[in-house]
């Protein structure tokens, strides 16, 4: 295990004091260190939002792209160089709102990337509008009558899409979070890790306390490979919120299925000195 400090850089987080993001950042460094991942082999991709700033605050390759589009960028990068460890990290609004279509279809693709979502059930950076995961009835400056649509359940949807790895954790349980991050990273395939994260400034409903009182770790004998019971578990949200690996399967990754990647990463395929006579024949 390398020292987690090799991930430190000189950037100063632009987050509010007390924000759950700090713990997630620390856990991230810890998990990477425990997995001995060198910063130059790691590519973080993020969208836009408070969460999406996270990868600036530690040493890694980084493509900080558009709001909601990080998963697509991550998939492209992974296809180009599957030797990279590619993690997309962003917020709930980013991933489940603006990025919803990429979320669902990339779960199907099963590219071996990791998606870490700081789920604070709110749009933080834009000052506190409801996100797709905000609880019913939450009032904001835009949702003046309270949120009318029931929350998007990323875990249930991912299971409906037969995602290969679906987990939930909580920024307030660092030990658990580090373990989940490690499992996600070492899993072979698309891994969704939804991380409950209190936003101390805008989310006055789902506070640290609120989560603390509700989250519980899944039982040791919980079987994440049973899709129906996983779905049942996924619907648990309210007084008790399960954290842990909720669903797991072993379907082949996208990259394994591509003959083009058999001989090494795509970016190394030679592109000059090629004989094109077979193509020229097609034009005759």
């Amino acid at each position, binding site marked *: 295990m390398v020292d987690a400090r090799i991930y430190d850089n000189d*950037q100063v987080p632009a987050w509010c004091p007390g924000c759950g993001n700090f713990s997630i950042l620390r856990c991230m460094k810890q998990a990477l260190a425990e997995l001995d991942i060198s*910063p*130059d*082999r790691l*590519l973080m*991709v993020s969208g*836009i939002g408070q969460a999406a*700033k996270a990868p*600036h605050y530690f*040493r*890694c*390759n*980084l*493509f*900080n*792209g*558009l709001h909601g*589009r990080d998963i*697509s*960028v*991550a*998939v*492209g*990068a*992974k*296809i*180009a*160089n599957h*030797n*990279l460890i590619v993690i997309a990290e962003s917020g709930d609004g980013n991933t489940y709102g603006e990025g919803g*279509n*990429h979320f*669902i*279809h990339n779960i199907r693709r099963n590219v071996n990337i990791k998606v870490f979502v700081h789920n604070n059930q709110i749009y933080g950076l834009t000052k506190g509008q409801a996100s797709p995961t905000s609880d019913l009835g939450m009032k904001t400056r835009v949702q003046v009558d309270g949120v009318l649509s029931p929350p998007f359940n990323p875990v249930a949807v991912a299971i409906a899409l037969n995602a290969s790895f679906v987990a939930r954790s909580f920024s307030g349980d660092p030990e658990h979070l580090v373990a989940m991050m490690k499992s996600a990273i070492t899993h072979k395939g698309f891994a969704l890790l939804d991380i409950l994260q209190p936003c101390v400034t805008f989310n006055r409903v789902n506070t640290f306390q609120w989560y603390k009182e509700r989250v519980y770790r899944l039982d040791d004998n919980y079987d994440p490979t049973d899709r129906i019971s996983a779905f049942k578990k996924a619907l648990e949200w309210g007084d008790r919120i399960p954290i842990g690996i909720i669903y797991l399967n072993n379907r082949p990754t996208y990259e394994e299925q*591509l*003959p*083009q*990647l058999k*001989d090494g990463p*795509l*970016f190394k*395929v030679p*592109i*000059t000195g*090629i004989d*094109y006579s*077979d*193509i*020229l024949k*097609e*034009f*005759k």
Partner: protein
Amino acid sequence: MELKIVIGGEAGQGIQTISSIMSRFFLRSGYYVFTEQSYQSRIRGGHNFTQVRVSTESISSSDDGIDILVALNEETINLHREEVSSNGIIIYDSELIKSVDNDKRFFGAPLQRIAIEKAKTRLAVNSSACGVLVGLLDGDFSILETLMREQFKDPEIGERNVLSARAGYEIGKTKNDFPFRTPFLSNNSRLLIDGGSAVGFGAIVAGCRFLSAYPMTPGTAVMNYLAGHSKRYNIVVEQAEDEISAINMVLGASFAGVRSMVTTSGGGFALMVEGLSLAGMTETPCVIHIGQRPGPATGLPTRTEQGELLFVINAGHGEFPRYVTAPRDAQDAFYKTIKAFNLADKYQIPSIILTDQFLIDSMVTIEGLDLDNIKIERYIENNPSKDYKRHLITDSGISPRALPGTEGILVITDSDEHDEEGHITEDLEIRKRLVEKRLKKGELIKEDIEEPIYFGVSNPDVILVGWGSTYGAIKESVKRLIEEDFKVGLLHFSDVYPLPYRQLEKYRDKRLISVEGNATGQFALLVRRETGIDIGEKILKYNGRPFTPSEIVKEVKKIW
């Protein structure tokens, strides 16, 4: 010698097969061919047709008029008989189409009966029709025979089609007073290439190894091409869930080191505009192929137009450089696609290849492609220094580009304004310097821009100004006008942005007429915006069909 064949019928009747076989037939017989497709946005039914224009001289457009009409249904006769020349001929299925009058141009043949008898399938009308044509034109049947055998993987089916073709051929030969003849001329090394394949082949030669796209006519042609060659050339082709994903996947792949492209049409590009701006900000090279079709919105999906020039040049929020090229024909499309990849890498910018349905779907005969002198330059720093900074401010504005995964360094970039390292910043002084750095590259691109082609008399009274796929038609119209002693020239642009201005300046005070496939004269607006030069007159077409030389000749005479 020149000959215009039109094959018409419903979607699904095999028009494309006949025209493609016949085009190859003429190519191999030593003729120049230009084949253009007019089709509707449906899979079966409706009215489609293809013009195969054959000549002993190089041609690069279709034209008005028909010498041979192959009518696969009655509607084709009704819609096109007026256009058939008086010494022309109308080939039709004598057993299916009955309502034929005693116009001496009619020439019936039991095309479908032959197909069923000889090839045991109706689908072989294609071969019987081709046979009739070759017989009629006194062509070399052995060429057609070879083509038939190549067409079908299963030798038995091939053989049956040869039989069907031969039966047609015998019928065709009976008409020995037909004034047109295309006997075998010469062996040659020419190629018959369509715009879609030219862009696709160019991309492969340029080293494109990743394409992500969402299907959209006519952009799909390039996706099909790369997918068709994906195994042989190690290309990953991924159909994205939408166009937004396509462009973002491509940026990810390019960032990680693979030459990558998207292909789409105007409507799909509209969804990529935010991603385009991201390419500009992160300085990630990418190539975008846009096959234009008539808009707005879904418009006419299978027709042609040049309606997206100003949109494409101005697309994206914020300010950043780009390269836009509108190839004039398939050959140019091949080279410009390679150039688009090279400039994208050189300046770390988005390059846009702006074609249209007409260019994409038309086949043209070219002398060949010079594969030996193609330069592929990646401009990638393989041994970056330890203090590597992705967005280092340099004199040229171009920062050294390293790839993520390179040992000992980090590659960082951001959609937010960033510092040289790539980290998000709110420092407004740095902001200013980064804006200037990015825009500097735009100035440099100008050095790589190709001036327009001038074609015409040396001291013209009038200069037609064109861009993109109209080259063939306008050039031919100018040729004809010159033959009629008009003092006319053509200034034709392929690279359109940054706009090359030297030639324009030279002709600044001439009478200029812009010829464009749109309704607002977008190129004329661009020219005035960039140079102040006023192109006072315009010949515009916007009904979804390409220009023909005859039409341009007529319009020019009208306003001369």
